[in-house]
């Protein structure tokens, strides 16, 4: 695919002024909706993870009429719930030198200088409020004996700023946001629509004015109108089939919005998390993360001798290669995720990998258990060790864990400006679904922070400004546009059901995943990416000619749900590969083999690629158009990222 590249300035609406005044200034200048008028506005929130639940609850509290949609049977099940390790905030409780500026700096550097400075600063600025809010909701964060909040360290930082609830922080934060949401449901300010799949966005007179969704129990195609649509639908990791995402996570809502005019930014920035339980067999349906927090106490190693086949307990210290401590003495086992993942791949590719497949490294707690005692380790990571044992049938208190990198998080997402508004006015994108804060690599414990920052402290202001500053005509679902798009959605379902071929959705999805993992994984090159684009196109044709879906559209039909999502992954995957192909540099999670230093570190090209790549949909089977948002670093000097 040859890409038409055009320089067009996307207006990110970043306020002028010093970076620590921008958000204050933005809030001061935004228009307000008066309390009595809020009830005249309807807002749709799609997705009920940290971003969606917090936004829906906060907007309901303000007095708007909110409709909240999720594909799960309850909003409490969104995949934010699976986040383990913690949430960052610049509270500086440990008195170890943290500050808003330092959290901002670490996040910009951790993202390999590919995020928008102003957004990241705001994120750091509101991080403390998030902790206060969650504590007030009754989130039982870990405490010191004196009753104050406890912290631990996460990758890419030299301070302890991570707040946590054992290894289930995401669960507790989501239940906090969910409880706030349930309170608004009880108050009549939020109406819940569980088991709904968003199938399309309705744009009227240039503004996002509603959605088309499918009731996953009855199969009914429903239309909903509103004055603003908030997309909080998470990431696209399941394009790789095997990932740490929940099985239902998908790109459909974001992709459908993309096809209605929302630019998709930096889709090639995919995070491969270094510490996951390795793949075991061809039947594998998903991968399970072992929290990054484990690297606080676990040491990563492989044998020094390629041919060492002894069990780990029999390999003495002098024969072990603690390769992260060796290569990165300053950060050791706490290097950022992209660095740790590539280092594991490098050792395994060189033949030092362990386990049956040779695609694993050890994560060893022997020293930590000897020094701190088993009880202390159990208190910090008990549920993670429990989970590891359930899956592998091995006891990590006795033998080292075996881990390998796996697809985990999408830094890329729909392009948004400083208001979190996409290129479709009235369509806001929050949390993992947007591209804004993590650049080319996300630091651990920052996803929860971003989801809640967007939902609690950014969108409630900026959505109000949209409502107050634009004249929106009266639109209901009786508008012909709703009917037109609902018919399109129905036809698409009919088309899927009418293929009646020979291959299951699972089978085709696995094949897509293999293409993505082999060519768009931890290391990429031009040849592989070009081949991937070709293979994805062929597989897309194969899908539309040979997929087999039983049943009808008018019933609970999980194969049909999967097929709809897969159809969109088969389009999206090509854009991901295209973006990776065009970005002729290595940065963060995007590692191009052609662009590396002599000691295999990523080589960035700031002269040519210091921009966010925002792709505009031009029509099916037509090249997407590239728009560039230049990234300007006024506060943080562009340097080569080093953790040595």
């Amino acid at each position, binding site marked *: 695919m040859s890409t038409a590249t055009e320089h067009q300035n996307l207006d990110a609406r970043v306020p002028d002024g010093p970076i620590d005044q921008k958000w204050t200034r933005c809030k001061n200048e935004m228009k307000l909706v008066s309390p009595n008028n809020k009830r005249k506005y309807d807002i749709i929130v799609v997705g009920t993870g940290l971003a969606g639940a917090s936004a829906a609850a906060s907007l309901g509290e303000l007095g708007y009429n909110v409709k909240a949609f999720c594909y799960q049977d309850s909003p409490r099940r969104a995949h934010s719930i699976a986040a383990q390790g913690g949430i960052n905030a610049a509270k500086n409780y440990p008195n170890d030198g943290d500050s808003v500026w330092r959290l901002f700096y670490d996040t910009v550097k951790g993202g390999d200088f590919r995020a928008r400075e102003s957004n990241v600063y705001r994120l750091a600025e509101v991080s403390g409020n998030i902790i206060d809010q969650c504590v007030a909701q009754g989130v039982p964060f870990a405490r010191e004996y*004196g009753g104050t909040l406890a912290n631990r360290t996460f990758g890419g930082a030299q301070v302890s700023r991570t707040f946590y609830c054992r290894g289930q922080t995401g669960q507790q934060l989501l239940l906090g946001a*969910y409880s706030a949401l349930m309170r608004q449901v009880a108050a009549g300010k939020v109406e819940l629509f569980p088991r709904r799949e968003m199938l399309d966005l309705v744009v009227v007179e240039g503004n996002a004015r509603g959605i088309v969704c499918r009731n996953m129990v009855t199969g009914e195609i429903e239309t909903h109108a509103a004055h603003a649509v908030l997309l909080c639908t998470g990431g696209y990791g399941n394009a790789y089939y095997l990932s740490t995402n929940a099985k239902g996570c998908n790109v459909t809502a974001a992709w459908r919005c993309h096809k209605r005019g929302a630019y998709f930014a930096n889709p090639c920035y995919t995070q491969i998390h270094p510490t996951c339980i390795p793949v075991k067999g061809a039947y594998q349906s998903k991968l399970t993360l072992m929290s990054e927090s484990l690297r606080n106490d676990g040491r990563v190693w492989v044998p020094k001798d390629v041919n060492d086949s002894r069990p780990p307990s029999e390999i003495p210290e002098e024969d072990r290669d603690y390769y992260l401590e060796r290569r990165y003495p300053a950060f050791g086992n706490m290097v950022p995720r992209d660095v740790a993942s590539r280092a594991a791949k490098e050792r395994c590719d060189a033949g030092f990998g362990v386990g049956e497949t040779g695609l694993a490294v050890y994560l060893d707690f022997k020293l930590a258990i000897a020094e701190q005692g088993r009880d202390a380790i159990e208190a910090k990571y008990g549920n993670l060790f429990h989970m590891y044992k*359930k899956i592998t049938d091995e006891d990590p208190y006795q033998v080292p864990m075996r881990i390998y990198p796996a697809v985990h998080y999408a830094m890329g997402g729909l392009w948004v400006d400083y208001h979190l508004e996409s290129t479709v006015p009235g369509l806001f994108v929050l949390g993992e679904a947007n591209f804004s804060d993590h650049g080319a690599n996300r630091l651990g414990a920052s996803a929860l922070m971003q989801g809640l920052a967007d939902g609690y402290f950014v969108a409630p202001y900026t959505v109000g400004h949209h409502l107050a500053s634009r004249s929106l005509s009266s639109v209901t679902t009786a508008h012909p546009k709703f009917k037109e798009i609902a018919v399109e959605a129905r036809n698409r379902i009919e088309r899927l059901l009418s293929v009646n071929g020979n291959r299951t959705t699972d089978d085709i999805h696995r094949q897509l995943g293999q293409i993505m993992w082999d060519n768009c994984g931890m290391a990429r090159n031009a040849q592989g990416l070009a081949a991937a684009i070709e293979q994805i196109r062929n597989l897309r044709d194969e899908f539309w000619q040979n997929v087999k879906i039983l049943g009808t559209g008018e019933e*609970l039909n999980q194969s049909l749900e999967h097929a709809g999502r897969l159809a969109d992954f088969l389009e999206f995957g090509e854009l991901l590969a295209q973006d990776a192909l065009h970005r002729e540099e290595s940065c963060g999670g995007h590692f191009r083999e052609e662009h590396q230093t002599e000691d295999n570190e990523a080589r960035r090209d700031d002269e040519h690629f210091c921009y966010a790549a925002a792709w505009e949909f031009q029509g099916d089977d037509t090249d997407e158009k590239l728009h560039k948002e230049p990234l300007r670093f006024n506060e943080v000097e562009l340097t080569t990222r080093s953790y040595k």
Partner: protein
Amino acid sequence: MTNPAKKRLSLHLRIWRQSRTDEAGEFRDYQLQDISPDMSFLEMLDILNQQLIEQGEAPVAFDHDCREGICGTCGMMINGQAHGPDHETTTCQLHMRHFNDGDTIIIEPWRARAFPVLRDLIVNRSAFDRIIQAGGYVSIKTGQAPEGNANLIPQQHQEGSLDAAACIGCGACVAACKNASAMLFTAAKVSHFVQLPQGAPERTKRVLAMINQHDEEGFGACTNTSECEAACPAAVSVSHIARLNREYLKAMLTATD
């Protein structure tokens, strides 16, 4: 080291099939061969479903999402036990190494009046959301929060609270209970808040409203048989029900409205 002694399994499955809520269901029998003991239970069902689709029979519908034991979406009765034979385990974290070659496995949905079957093994658990809506929250708006360390919370209270808040809302407690009571679920939320200062202002109102909603949903009463605790994948203890009972009694005596 993954139990090499165990060979691959042949299984006889008896699975509840029901096409919709208002239609009668029935058990149907299926055979599966060559199942790896390292597979998860849901991966075993994935394989069955691939076979069924290839044969032109509708795949078995079952709820699942995170497949790592935390979202609470999955859940089925396996040989009469909620989430199957392994202790403190969701169905997605149950592995086939807990079964033997030649076993018959009977798989049913959660059975409770308050959890109507939607299809096959999928039930509607919205009643749980409504119990939370009745009072499972602290009434605080975004932006109203005091400084996080303004309230000191003794570590044992925080830990005790988290033990209760660990509930994943899967419904196994209801399915395991002969009365189909959701008392463990309700108690977990009451106990979560009652051990924290944040929960204090609404403690009376909360427990009364949540119990009232619990009963309205059609869940049964608790008769202290503790089957719920035995089935709970998140290790939520029945001691939280005892705490709920104390709270409820206190509330009945002191409620002013």
